[in-house]
């Protein structure tokens, strides 16, 4: 395996692990259960271990500090309280910095990193001292049985590796010898015992089965992950136990205990390998025998006698279980380069265009068989399209959970007690969308906390609960994804917004605006209602940038607010960026595409009304004549149609000549030249090779109202 190639995976995994650690830390000490603690510890440990593989010594050193304190927490020697959580959060930030530096090609620490890391390590060290002191007080007996330095591992000592190969290893084409040879490249095999006890008598012995086991004392600077890596290919066929240097005696005993018939022998082997001292073995085995009558678990004995703490045994068990779980998860998902997916989507797009023209030609030939084939093909291509797009869909939950940290930090800075409520985490949307949503959402959440939610005193005055809440919600709605950021704060004050907008010359004082128009002013460049400027927001930049970002994603944003009760910012985004289900309409010789999801119904155009609205089942329906809008010069046909489209709850009619029906539309962006054109969001190729313009329904609806 080429180490360099694995580096991006390391970076990705580390990012994910840090995210997970952070999320768990943010739940606070009160809700920290053993599982969470273990996960945090494992995260730190894995990053340290993998960093070691890549010789990222500065990361190893830093994570080692973090891991040591976490180990203390897990063992119950260090109390996990708020200051420590804050310190650990700072540590995850620093670790992230280090990882990003590696991603940027900086593989060793620079002075700045060291300056940033040193105080963190020093503060971690304070916890460690306490740890070691309490450890010494609590475990005097363990100290006698285990005369080695506890805690940090001395490099002079050996790893102990216990291998039992499964019967099928040889048949699967693998030779245990080659793993041992490979192992000896990572360090030196100080001692090895070959175990042949499992070898059956001659008649039953199948020469193609493997019966051997090995106990190995291994001197190496490599870390556990690296050693485990050696046995990667036989992991499923083989029972492997790897004990780091200076493991607790109990772990060796557990190893002995795993093979009851050979127990005494295995014990001797451990001594012979130099892994255990005879004295240590004696002590452990004596304890085992003394209680043989009651047949308790060895772990229990050791715990009872105070040699190890229950946490250690539990942790070991949990760890094994989780290793299994992780493997099962691995099998269910694979990591794919995003570039490959994009390429696939591109190809599917081309495929759709090609199928469309095949269809058209088939129809023209009037060969029934060919038409049938083409129809089947279209059906399949459509399914492929659905699936290919599905590949890019990611649940928004992970993004939402990242805001726990934002809320934690910002509420601390502002002195407000705020909780984040998340719903709709399972809503899926395009990965590119999710990536580009991060910044606007962060801004909205910060805004909600900073401006939306009142100070605790004010909340009490208004008899609201002292704890404010910010809600993130997501759901699908007719071809778009809706993301809501709401708070239960003071709400927007209409008069204030109006006054400010007039003061800034954004609107004419004479003009009367409805509520929604007033709230939309907030998104105007250079608008800010904050009475004082904080370091978070309120500098007059922000909301307009948020809007720009969202519009760039073909989305819209608007605000609903109840004064005194709270504000909700509603972001609407298209489900995907690449391909849509379209509906073809014709005006004269021009063909336009409407996103199918936005279409409510098609009705016949009532003959020649002179005004710009019509009566749709008793309701007023404003409409736009596309012929006029796009200045199509061909004369109108006798029977025109109205396509009723809907966006954000508002209906509008579009007057067109012909309805062509559904069409799979691959969105091609318009050239820069057309960036100023309104009401058109893109173009698409028809099967005939003609270009059809894709109508921007939100813009049209806005124009009609």
């Amino acid at each position, binding site marked *: 395996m080429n180490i360099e190639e694995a580096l991006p995976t390391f970076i990705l995994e580390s990012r994910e692990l840090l995210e997970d650690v952070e999320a768990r830390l943010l739940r606070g000490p009160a809700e920290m259960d053993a599982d969470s603690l273990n996960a945090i510890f494992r995260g730190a440990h894995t990053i340290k271990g993998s960093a070691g593989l890549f010789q990222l010594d500065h990361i190893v050193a830093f994570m080692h500090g973090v891991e040591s304190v976490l180990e203390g927490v897990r063992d119950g020697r260090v109390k996990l309280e708020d200051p420590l959580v804050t310190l650990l959060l700072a540590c995850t930030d620093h670790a992230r910095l280090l990882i990003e530096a590696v991603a940027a090609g900086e593989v060793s620490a620079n002075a700045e990193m060291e300056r940033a890391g040193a105080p963190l390590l020093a503060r971690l060290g304070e916890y460690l001292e306490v740890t070691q002191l309490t450890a010494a007080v609590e475990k005097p007996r363990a100290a006698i049985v285990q005369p080695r330095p506890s805690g940090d591992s001395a490099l002079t000592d050996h790893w102990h590796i216990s291998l039992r*190969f499964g019967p099928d290893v040889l048949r699967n084409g693998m*030779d245990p010898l080659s793993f041992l040879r490979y192992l000896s490249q990572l360090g030196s095999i100080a001692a090895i015992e070959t175990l042949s006890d499992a070898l059956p008598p001659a008649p039953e*012995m199948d020469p193609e089965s493997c019966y051997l086991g090995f106990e190995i004392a291994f001197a190496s600077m490599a870390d556990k992950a690296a050693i485990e890596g050696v046995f990667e290919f036989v992991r499923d066929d083989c029972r492997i136990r790897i004990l780091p240097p200076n493991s607790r005696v109990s772990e060796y005993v557990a190893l002995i205990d795993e093979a009851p018939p050979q127990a005494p022998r295995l014990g001797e082997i451990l001594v012979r390998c130099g892994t255990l001292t005879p004295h240590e073995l004696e002590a452990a085995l004596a304890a085992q025998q003394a209680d043989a009558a009651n047949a308790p678990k060895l772990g229990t004995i050791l715990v009872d006698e105070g040699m190890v703490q229950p946490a250690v045994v539990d942790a070991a068990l949990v760890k094994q279980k989780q290793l299994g779980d992780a493997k099962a998860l691995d099998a269910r998902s694979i990591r794919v380069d995003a570039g490959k997916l994009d390429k696939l989507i591109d190809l599917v797009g081309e495929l759709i265009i090609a199928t469309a023209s095949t269809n058209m030609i088939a129809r023209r030939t009037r060969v029934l068989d060919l038409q049938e084939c083409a129809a089947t093909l279209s059906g399949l291509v459509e399914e492929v399209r659905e699936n290919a797009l599905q590949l890019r869909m990611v649940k928004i939950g992970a993004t939402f959970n990242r805001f726990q940290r934002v809320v934690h930090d910002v509420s601390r800075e502002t002195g407000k007690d705020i909780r984040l409520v998340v719903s709709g985490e399972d809503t899926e949307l395009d990965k590119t969308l999710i990536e580009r949503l991060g910044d606007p959402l962060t801004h909205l959440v910060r805004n909600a906390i900073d401006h939306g939610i009142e100070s605790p005193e004010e909340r009490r005055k208004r008899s609201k609960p002292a704890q404010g809440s910010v809600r993130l919600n997501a759901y699908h709605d007719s071809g778009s994804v809706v993301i809501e950021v709401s708070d239960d704060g003071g709400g927007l004050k209409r008069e204030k917004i109006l006054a400010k907008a007039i003061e800034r010359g954004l609107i004419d004082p004479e003009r009367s605006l409805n509520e929604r128009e007033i709230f939309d002013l907030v998104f105007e460049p250079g608008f800010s209602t904050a009475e004082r400027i904080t370091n978070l927001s309120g500098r007059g930049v922000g909301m307009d940038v948020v809007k720009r970002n969202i519009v760039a994603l073909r989305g819209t944003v608007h605000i609903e607010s109840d004064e005194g009760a709270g504000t909700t910012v509603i972001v609407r985004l298209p489900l995907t960026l690449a391909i849509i289900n379209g509906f073809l309409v014709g005006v004269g010789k021009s063909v336009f595409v409407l996103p199918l999801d936005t279409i409510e119904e098609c009705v016949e155009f009532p003959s020649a009304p002179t005004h710009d609205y019509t009566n749709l089942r008793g309701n007023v329906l404003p409409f736009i004549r596309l012929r006029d809008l796009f200045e199509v010069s061909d004369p109108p046909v006798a029977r025109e149609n109205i396509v009723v489209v809907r966006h954000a709850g508002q209906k509008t009619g579009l007057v067109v000549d012909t309805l062509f029906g559904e069409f799979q539309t691959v969105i091609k962006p318009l050239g820069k030249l057309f960036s100023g054109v309104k009401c058109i969001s893109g173009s698409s190729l028809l099967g005939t090779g003609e270009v059809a313009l894709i109508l921007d329904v939100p813009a049209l609806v806005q124009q009609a109202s």
Partner: protein
Amino acid sequence: MSRAKVAKPLATATRVCVEGELTIYRAMELKRALLEPLESKNAVEIDLSRVTELDTSGVQLMLLAQRTAAAKELELRFVDHSPAVVEVLALLNLGASLGLGASEATARGAL
């Protein structure tokens, strides 16, 4: 290709010479070849000088032969270990139990 043949001993021992690979690919055949001489009452000498390759299944067969012989209270000796055999037995720390004396090991090394 490689094969195992049984030759009549010069002394009282049956001498088996393993030629070529002592590996999984011939494990079935070799099991028979190594165990058959143990049916007799004679001591058995297994000549390993012409073994070109030894793998885990080969090692298992050697251990099996040795154990079977011990059960029948027969004398079984592995002699003239080839370099390939020496390397594997050293790796597995089985030299002492599979007939590789310290002197023999060094003598082999000198060759």
